């Protein structure tokens, strides 16, 4: 079997005395689209934040694209260049224009000259249909535009894996569609993706596998058809009942 894009073994993460991740074993294959769901506080954000070491795991092993995450700074940055992340709250840099938001990280992360980085940025911005916003500052954009710029910014680094942490939760309902559409486009392009989302329609349509977490553990994982039609665990059924309103 080919080396997976992400391999997690026995990953434990504690905040003080509280165990947020309690022995996570998870492999994500190259090109796989994973949807991660679970009740609030179940550790979904913590799990994906451990993958690019925004959170530091206490026990176990995480290997991303063949690089094991440890204390070594070079390894951490190498992993971060392979892993793009999109946040619920966009986190665009307010003091930079949309174009600079996309070009500057590329220049600093990969040492790309400015002209080349800007060309790349324009390319990604037009892929996400926000090319006409390039000269604006983020405050002037709508929520949906901000999130698409954030996706473009992450793609400028040319990552092999994309992590999404509830990318549509902070959006007005009418803007959810345009962001999901962008994520579908990425998925169809063969990107390895882990999406934390409560958009079950998206999960059905795009996911190869749905992973359900509760209390810092993975309770159940299955392809979407089976996950939604025949969930095995009682917790999953309860959760689905709440999200799908059944």
């Amino acid at each position: 079997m080919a080396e997976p894009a992400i391999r997690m073994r026995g990953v434990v993460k504690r905040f003080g005395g509280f165990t947020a991740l309690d022995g996570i074993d998870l492999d994500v294959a190259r090109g796989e689209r994973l949807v991660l769901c679970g009740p609030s506080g179940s550790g979904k954000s913590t799990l994906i934040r451990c993958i690019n070491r925004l959170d530091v795991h206490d026990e176990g092993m995480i290997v991303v694209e063949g690089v094991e995450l440890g204390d070594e700074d070079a390894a951490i940055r190498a992993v971060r260049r392979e892993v793009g992340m999109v946040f619920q709250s966009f986190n665009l840099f307010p003091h930079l224009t949309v174009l600079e938001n996309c070009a500057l990280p590329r220049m600093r992360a990969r040492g790309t000259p400015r002209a080349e980085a800007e060309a790349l940025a324009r390319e990604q911005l037009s892929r996400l249909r926000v090319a006409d916003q390039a000269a604006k500052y983020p405050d002037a954009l709508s929520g949906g535009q901000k999130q698409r710029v954030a996706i473009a910014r992450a793609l400028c680094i040319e990552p092999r894996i994309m992590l999404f942490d509830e990318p549509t939760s902070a959006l007005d309902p009418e803007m959810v569609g345009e962001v999901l559409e962008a994520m579908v486009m990425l998925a169809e392009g063969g990107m390895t993706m882990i999406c934390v989302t409560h958009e079950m329609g998206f999960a059905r349509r795009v996911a190869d596998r749905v992973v359900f977490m509760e209390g810092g553990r993975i309770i159940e994982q299955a392809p979407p058809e089976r996950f939604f039609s025949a969930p095995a665990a009682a917790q999953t059924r309860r959760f689905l009942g709440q999200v799908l309103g059944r």
Partner: protein
Amino acid sequence: MARAPAPALPPPPAASGLAWLRRRLFATWFDAIVTVLAGAALVWLLAALIDWAFLDAVWSAEMRERCRETAGACWAVIEARGRLILFGLYPHEAHWRSTLACLIVVATMVLSCLPAFWGMARLAGLWLAGFGGFVLMMHGGLFGLPVVTTEQWGGLSLTVFIFAAVVVLGMPMAVVLALARRARLPVVAGLAALIIDTVRGLPLLTILFAAAVVAPLALPDWAQGDKLGRVIVAFAVFYAAYQAEIIRAGLQSIPPGQEEAALALGMPWRSVVFDILLPQAFRNTLPATINQVVITFKETSIVTIIGFFEVTASASAAIGRGEWGAYYVEVYVFVALIYFVFVFGLSRYGAWLERRMRLIRG
């Protein structure tokens, strides 16, 4: 459910100048009396000031005899003593060098205020050149310029130089202290906090006095340097302690998502700090920073106490000599005007920066 919009209210009546006056100044009898009295006092004050400063003033030193007779200002003292005020003890025949040095520093300050020069390398280069030019002009010793030691430096160029050097040295120190204070290593953070709190706990005068007088006793010869140099470094540390807290407040006001996003994009720590965090921290604390810089400019006058003839000290010296002793008001007004020009310039610049940033933030 659709609701019809409420009918529009009639527009407020256009305020004519007269109506405005009546409403604001003459609404009641009491208001009217206060307005008239305050207006009269204002006119009288203004007239007296104009009489004193212009109409009854004596302008030329040749007519100094008339100073005793007139009730107006004796600006003649500025003509007679102006050089002493502006140049202190700097040798008379080399005053042009002091003037040029002062202009060099002012030009460097103005240039570094322009966005075109905002960049580590550019600012560093600019200030190296600026200070190099200043020291060459003031100190001499090269290109046939006779040496003038720092004990003889004085007046406005000394004030401007101390101010610029303190801010330019102090700002990077402040950044380092602010970053160190939020470092993950407790030793580093604790040390930075200790330095900041200690320096802020001491009066500036004590610190400068220690640098000027006590340091030579404590330091080995090779580390003593020049008295002016020691005083500037000590002053810069003092400024840095306050500025560091301003920067730290600015850093704290940035949502943690900014740093996380930058790290997640694979940006190196240095770039996260200098490209993402510090620019936002400075933006968020611009008024406080300008305030601190203005305070520092005014505080430069304190170096008088340890024997430097900056502009207020040389002004005192100018009136201290018998014949012009009576005209200290004129001299201090003149010095105040000099300070005002600089401080007003600084605060206008601050206002311009804030406006520019508001535009950027949409």
